């Protein structure tokens, strides 16, 4: 594989005495997809949130283009490149359109560029018809797609997806799968946690199992 985008090293995390993560190493490559599996409560969500900069690890290092930094030092710049998607995404109480546009106000775009970007993203995800609807009133599957779209529109280098297909019917899964394929081929680095490996066959490059606080490589393509 080519140069990694980011390498996380020696991630450690414990909650009130019980060690959840002890020395997790993870390399993220552009256009590659990693699947994380592991038993309930083993720490998959925590790991993703630490990578996204949403949870503070007890210890961690981040390597960016060969240079190793402490997590504290690197997290600010790294956070900008990484988006975490919840297992059950939460919609802001506004329209689909403004949910999708949410993160764009922090990008340096003018009004017209923003508008175009939103329209393009809505089209990309097939959400144009529901653009003006209140996001909270939509079904779980559609909300999931809105969550994908408001992340995708920001073109992050890394996308972390926590059980993206739990509680989805076959059709929604199919649609979501297609979105994932397109994100990956656009060069995004994907990390997916799931108990259902079969849903992701065909896009997963590496499969790790989180066990006893560390990652175990299960398969590699």
């Amino acid at each position: 594989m080519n140069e990694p985008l980011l390498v996380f090293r020696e991630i450690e995390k414990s909650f009130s005495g019980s060690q959840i993560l002890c020395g997790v190493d993870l390399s993220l490559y552009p256009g590659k997809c990693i699947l994380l599996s592991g038993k309930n409560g083993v720490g998959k969500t925590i790991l993703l949130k630490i990578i996204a900069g949403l949870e503070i690890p007890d210890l961690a290092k981040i390597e960016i283009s060969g240079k190793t930094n402490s997590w504290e030092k690197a997290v600010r710049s790294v956070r900008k490149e990484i988006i975490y998607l919840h297992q059950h995404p939460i919609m802001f109480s506004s329209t689909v359109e403004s949910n999708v546009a949410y993160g764009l106000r922090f990008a340096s775009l003018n009004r017209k560029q923003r508008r175009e970007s939103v329209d393009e993203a809505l089209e990309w995800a097939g959400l144009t018809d529901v653009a003006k609807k209140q996001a909270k009133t939509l079904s779980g599957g559609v909300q999931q797609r809105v969550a994908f779209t408001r992340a995708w529109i920001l073109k992050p280098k890394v996308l972390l997806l926590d059980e993206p297909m739990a509680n989805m019917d076959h059709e929604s899964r199919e649609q979501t799968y297609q979105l994932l394929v397109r994100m990956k081929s656009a060069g995004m680095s994907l990390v997916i946690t799931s108990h259902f490996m079969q849903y992701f066959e065909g896009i997963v490059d590496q499969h790790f199992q989180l066990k006893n606080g560390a990652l175990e490589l299960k398969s590699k393509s």
Partner: protein
Amino acid sequence: MNGLLLTTQQALQLLFTGDPELWSIVLLSFSVSLKAILLTTPFAFLVSFALSHGKFPGIRIILAIFNSLLSVPTVVIGLFLYVLLTRQGPFGDLRLLFTQTAMIIGQMILCFPTLVALGYAAIQAADRRVWETARTLGAPPWFSMLTVFFEVRFALLAAVLTGFGRIISEIGISMMIGGNIMGYTRNITTAIAMETSKGEFAQGIALGLVLLLLSFLLTALLSYLQGHKEFAA
């Protein structure tokens, strides 16, 4: 009985003929209490937010303190401020005793714990994912906080209304450190107390009606907001 009927009639007359003295008292009450609530709200909600989303030791203790401050009697706050602001007191040089500023400060102290506690409850009810989603989508901390506020706006507004209801109807602070000076620090509650003690009930009843009406209005608004809260959750 006949007397009561007569005074009520006089009270209504005062209200509806736009008696200038009466309405200036009402206006003063609103002006003081509105300033107090508006000045307190941003800071109080900031504290609520820090308590609900922050990670620092002692949060439980701070919360317990705020909760116990909820029921501090207004005369105690009045007394406390009086001691501080009186000429011989540590802040006597500021010459704040018997001014509107003193009343505003007192009412701010009164509504602060209410706003913090109710604000905390409101923000605590917001899903943690709102904050996380805002942050991961690139929003800076302050904007993420506003996003959380927006998600629970009805509950926050209810907190503000409750706080306002508390301070506009209080009398202990206004009496003790306002001093009930006509046209300057006389508000609805101190006016009612004084007029009544003078045996002049008409103005007292008229002002009482204004206060009652306001409290009905606030209650109605609050239950309306309650309905919204369920939708938002």
